């Protein structure tokens, strides 16, 4: 069997006395679109942020592309990696944030080429050419020289997706990518994500968009209170959930 792209085993995380992840184990395979669903406070965003070590895990083990994230094992000990080692791991894991987090002092194109030129040290001409292609791919070729402040929320999020793709990641993390958008702008971002999924990108999406999960997702993981409650085919989980906790959540959301 092929090695899963993300392998999480018994991931635990606490903020102070509050335990937000109580032992999450799951696999995400190459090319899979995995949607993490659950009520707010269930720990799904925290779990996502553990995958590129934006949050340090307190227990358990996590591998992305077979590489242990944030730690090195020697004997019975896990040594935390130094900052530059973690930085290197992060460059191959794309991340898209709820609040876009584009760099406001740089144009759309400058945002996109920032990673390739600064982190990967690709020649600028090449980065610009690839950056323009990526902007075209998210439908924003004509906005290359606009600053984020001159773009709508949906456009900003599409630039943010292009910025992540510029580093040619092997997996993309989406942290509620449409939650900060006006309703009429959600569609354009989901369209880009759908086409990305069609291109074979491995995606892990924390979302409240049930429609997207059902249509584009290959698998849905439902989380509640820091635990993985139910995993499975999106249609099965969303239409015929087995667990009472999932049923309760869906009855509220879909009501």
């Amino acid at each position, binding site marked *: 069997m092929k090695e899963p792209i993300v392998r999480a085993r018994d991931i635990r995380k606490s903020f102070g006395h509050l335990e937000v992840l109580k032992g999450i184990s799951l696999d995400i395979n190459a090319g899979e679109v995995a949607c993490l669903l659950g009520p707010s406070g269930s720990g799904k965003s925290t779990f996502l942020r553990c995958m*590129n070590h*934006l949050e340090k895990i307190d227990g358990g083990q996590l591998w992305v592309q077979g590489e242990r994230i944030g730690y090195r094992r020697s004997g019975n000990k896990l040594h935390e990696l130094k*900052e530059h080692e973690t*930085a*290197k*791991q*992060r*460059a*191959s*894991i*794309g*991340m898209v*944030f709820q*609040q876009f*987090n584009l*760099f*406001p*002092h*740089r*144009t759309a194109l400058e945002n996109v080429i*920032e*990673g390739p030129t*600064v*982190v990967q040290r690709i020649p600028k001409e090449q980065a610009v050419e690839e950056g323009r*292609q*990526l902007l*075209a*791919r*998210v*439908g*924003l070729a004509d906005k290359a020289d*606009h*600053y*984020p*402040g*001159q*773009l*709508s*929320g*949906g*456009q900003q999020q*599409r630039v*943010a997706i292009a910025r*992540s793709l510029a*580093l*040619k990641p*092997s997996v993309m993390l989406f942290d509620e990518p449409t939650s900060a958008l*006006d309703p*009429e*702008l959600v*569609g*354009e*971002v989901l*369209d*880009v994500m759908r*086409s990305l999924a*069609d*291109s*074979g*990108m491995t995606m892990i999406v924390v979302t409240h968009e049930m429609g997207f999960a059902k249509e584009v997702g290959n698998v849905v993981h439902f989380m509640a209170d820091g635990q993985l409650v139910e995993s499975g085919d999106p249609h099965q989980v969303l239409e015929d959930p087995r667990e009472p906790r999932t049923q309760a959540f869906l009855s509220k959301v879909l009501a």
Partner: protein
Amino acid sequence: MTLYTATEEEQNLSIVPARYRGRWVMAGVVVLGVALMAYGMVTNQRFQWGTVGEYLFAAPVLAGLGNTLMLTAVSMAIGIVLGIAVAVCRLSPNPILSSAAWAYSWFFRGTPLMVQLLFWFFMAALIPKLVLGVPFGPSFFEISTNTLISPFTAAILGLSLNEGAYMGEIVRSGIRAIPVGQTEAAKAMGMTRLQTMRRVILPQAMRVIIPPTGNETIGMLKYTSLVIVIGYSELLTSVSIIYSRTFQTIPLLIVAALWYLAVTAVLSVGQYYVERHFERGFTPMKAAKALPKTAANALSKSGLPPASSASLATVSGPAEELEKAK
């Protein structure tokens, strides 16, 4: 439901802006006051404008001005670099660095600048010679402190170390004004802490840092006059030497004041351009012509590129590329 159509009469209603008569009254009062002051200054012989003109471009005054400008420029340059270092150390997760930076700020903000200047100048009394070598071991090189510390070096040391402490707080406030999401986005892209600071945080923090730094520079222009206590000569020292000889105190102080005002005016213009540079991206500049003020709002309502057709069509090509990239 039928839409209401305005009558022709209603469509032709014109708008008259509110009129504020009080403003005209105030303007009159202000103009009158300024005219009175100007008249008084011109006709009052005791201002001795002739003497002011005589000394405004006198060689010792210009030499003093040159020293003032140099002290200001060098001390501010060192102060800003120190300030960035102090701020970065203060915000560092390393407890040694952050406490050291805190202690530095505490000491140099907590003691009078004049005392610091005197300390540097009389350092030879405390430490007669400076030695380069292995701590507690042999020395390779030594120099008498008095040779090293001239009035000029003491002035630069005193002013810049003091400025570094204040700039540290200014830079720190600028860094902290940047939302944490910016750091997270930079981290997620694989940037190191240094790259994040240099490429993402500081350029944005400059917007917050520049205005108080302008204050500091203008302040420094005048604080340099304190170096009179260690015998270094700058603008105010030069004029005071002249008026203690000629007793034309008022006109010579006016000479100094005019130069300070002139330099401050130039600095303010400079500050305007520096501010405008770092404002990049925060004001809709290029789009301002084409788009209404709230560009983002306007765009979001005009129902933008139908992502469906346009972006999906372009996807097929790069998609293969992505496959290759894997």
